[in-house]
C-alpha cells in the first residue's frame, strides 16, 4: 500500500507534463511563459485561439475519456477476476461504437442522442454476455470468451455500417473503428465531465464492495455484500464509463485493457488501483496522441487509437508471458 501515493504522484507529474507539452508543441510552438499566460487568461489573440480553441479541448477530452477507459477496464478486470476481461476485448466498446454509428449514420442523430445510443448499445452487449455466460453462477472465463465472440460481431456490423453508410471520410470511419481525438469540442468535454461527475461517486461507493467480490462470491456474501446487486451495479457503472467515452472518441484501442495491469504492477499489493489505473490511461492516451499528431509524419493525421494499439499490443504479449512465469513460480 505504501507505494500507492508515490505512484499516484509520479503519474500525475508525468500527466501534467504531457498535457502542457501537448498544448504548447505543434506547427506553432508556444514558450512556457506564453503558454502559462494564455492558460491563465492572458496571451495574444492568436495564442488564445490556438490554445483555447484547438489544443486545450483535445487535451481535456483526452484526460476525461482516459479516466473513463482506465476505470472501466480496472472495474471489469477485477469484477471478472480476469485480465482479459476489459470492455474493449469483450465487445462492450464495440457495442457502444455500433450503436453510436447506427444513430449517427442511419438515424442522423446529433448531440446527446449519440452517447446515449452508445450507452444503450454497450448495455445491451454487456447483458447479452451476462445472460449467455450465466450457468448457476458467474464464470469470468466464459464471460470473456462469449465477449470476444461478440466483439468480432460488433466489428463486423461496424464495418458493414461504415461501408453502407455515406462515410466518405476515411478518417471519420477510422475514428469509429479504432478511436481518435481529432474532433474534440467543448460540448464533448461537457458531456464527459457531467458523466464522470455522476459516475465517479458511484465508483467510490462500489469499490468497497468490489474489494470483497475479489475474494469470491461466497466470502463476499458472508461479509455482508449483496453479491448480485453489487455486481449488476458495477457492470452498469463500468459500461457507462466506457460507452460514453467511446461515443465521444471511439474505442481507443487497448487503453481500457492495459491501464489497470500497468497500474497494478506499479503499485503492487492486490488492491483495485483505481486512481493509478485512470492516471496510467491518461499518460498513455496523452503520449499516444502526441505521437499520433507530431511524430508519425504523414499527410493525414493518424488516429490516436492506432498508436494506443501499437503500444498496447506488445504490452499484452509481455504481460501474458511474464504472468505465466510468475504463475508457475507460485
Amino acid at each position: 500500500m505504501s507505494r500507492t501515493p508515490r505512484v499516484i504522484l509520479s503519474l500525475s507529474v508525468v500527466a501534467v507534463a504531457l498535457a502542457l507539452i501537448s498544448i504548447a508543441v505543434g506547427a506553432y510552438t508556444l514558450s512556457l511563459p506564453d503558454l502559462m499566460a494564455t492558460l491563465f487568461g492572458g496571451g495574444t489573440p492568436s495564442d488564445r485561439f490556438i490554445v483555447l480553441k484547438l489544443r486545450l479541448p483535445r487535451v481535456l477530452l483526452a484526460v476525461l475519456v482516459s479516466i473513463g477507459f482506465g476505470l472501466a477496464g480496472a472495474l471489469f478486470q477485477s469484477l471478472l477476476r480476469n485480465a482479459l476481461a476489459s470492455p474493449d476485448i469483450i465487445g462492450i466498446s464495440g457495442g457502444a461504437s455500433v450503436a453510436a454509428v447506427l444513430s449517427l449514420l442511419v438515424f442522423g442523430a446529433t448531440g446527446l442522442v449519440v452517447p446515449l445510443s452508445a450507452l444503450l448499445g454497450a448495455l445491451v452487449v454487456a447483458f447479452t454476455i451476462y445472460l449467455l455466460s450465466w450457468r448457476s453462477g458467474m464464470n469470468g472465463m466464459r464471460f470473456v470468451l462469449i465477449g470476444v465472440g461478440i466483439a468480432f460481431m460488433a466489428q463486423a456490423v461496424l464495418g458493414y455500417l461504415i461501408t453502407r453508410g455515406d462515410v466518405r471520410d476515411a478518417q471519420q470511419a477510422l475514428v469509429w473503428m479504432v478511436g481518435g481525438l481529432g474532433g474534440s469540442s467543448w460540448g464533448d468535454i461537457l458531456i464527459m465531465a457531467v458523466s464522470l461527475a455522476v459516475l465517479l461517486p458511484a465508483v467510490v461507493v462500489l469499490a468497497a464492495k468490489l474489494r470483497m467480490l475479489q475474494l469470491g462470491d461466497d466470502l463476499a456474501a458472508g461479509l455482508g455484500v449483496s453479491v448480485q446487486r453489487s455486481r449488476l451495479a458495477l457492470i452498469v457503472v463500468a459500461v457507462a464509463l466506457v460507452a460514453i467515452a467511446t461515443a465521444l472518441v471511439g474505442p481507443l484501442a487497448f487503453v481500457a485493457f492495459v491501464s489497470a495491469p500497468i497500474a497494478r504492477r506499479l503499485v503492487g499489493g492486490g488492491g483495485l488501483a483505481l486512481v493509478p489505473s485512470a492516471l496510467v490511461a491518461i499518460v498513455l492516451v496523452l503520449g499516444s496522441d502526441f505521437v499520433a499528431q507530431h511524430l508519425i509524419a504523414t499527410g493525414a493525421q493518424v488516429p490516436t487509437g492506432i498508436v494506443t494499439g501499437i503500444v498496447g499490443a506488445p504490452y499484452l504479449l509481455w504481460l501474458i508471458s511474464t504472468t505465466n512465469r510468475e504463475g508457475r513460480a507460485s
Partner: protein
Amino acid sequence: MTQADVPRRPAHELRADSVTLNYGGRDIVSNLSVTIPDGKVTVIVGANACGKSTLLRGLSRLLRPASGHVMLDGRDIHSVPSKEVARVVGILPQSPIAPEGITVRDLVARGRYPHQGWFQQWSAADDAAVEHALVATDTAELASRRIEELSGGQRQRVWIAMALSQDPDILLLDEPTTFLDVRHQLDALDVLAALNRERGTTIVMVLHELNLAARYADHMVLMGEGQIIAEGTPAEVVTAARMREAFGLEAQIISDPVSHSPMVIPVGRA
C-alpha cells in the same frame, strides 16, 4: 491485547427450522431442523454428498432455503440486513480467492468490511482486530508477505485470520483442514479451539476426518442423505452402529489415548 481485556461474547441462537435446501432443483437437505449450541464447537460430519456443506451454506445465509427458515436470534436470517448478519456470523467457504499480489495484512484487513460504514474510514478498532487476528493465528510475522509466497498451511491460517478479523460471535467453516497435512490440520483446529475457549466464539465446522472431529467437537452432528442421523456429544454420536449407517463402514470404536474422545478404527466395508 491480553486475555483479561477480551470480553466474552454475547449469546446468540442460530437454528434451522425444517429447512429444505436445494441446488438446481434437487433437494440436498430436506426438512432438517438443528439448533447450534451457543459457545460450543459443533462439527458436522457425514459421507460425501450427504448435504453437510449445503447445510453450512444454509446456516450462513449463502443459500436461501426452498422451505423452512434459518433463524438468528429469533429472526429469519434473510430478513436481517446482510452486513448486520456479518457482524455476528462469519463464514469461511471452502475455496476463497486471494487477489493476486495481496499481502497477508491487507487480506486479513478485508474481514473488517462489515464493521465499516459508507463514509466511516479505517479505525483504531479495525487495526486492533487485525492485529489480534494475526497474533491469534500465528501469522503476524507473515503480515507483509504476499499470499502466493505462503505454504498451504500458512495460507489456511491467514484465511482463518481474515475470518477472525471479521470478529464474528459465530464462525462457520467449510472443511478448514482440506489440503493440509496432519500437523497443519491440528494447527488450524487448535487456533479455532483456542478462539472458542478464550473468547467464547461459537464454532461450526464441516470436517471430513472423523477422529479429529470427535477430538475437537463439543457437539457433533452426523448427517446422511440430507438428514441428521444423530447429534450429541462425540461419545453419543460416534458408535459402531452409526458409522455403519452413515458411512457403510464396519468399524471398532476405541478411546483416543490422547484426548479420550471416541476414535474410529475402520475394519472394512459394512
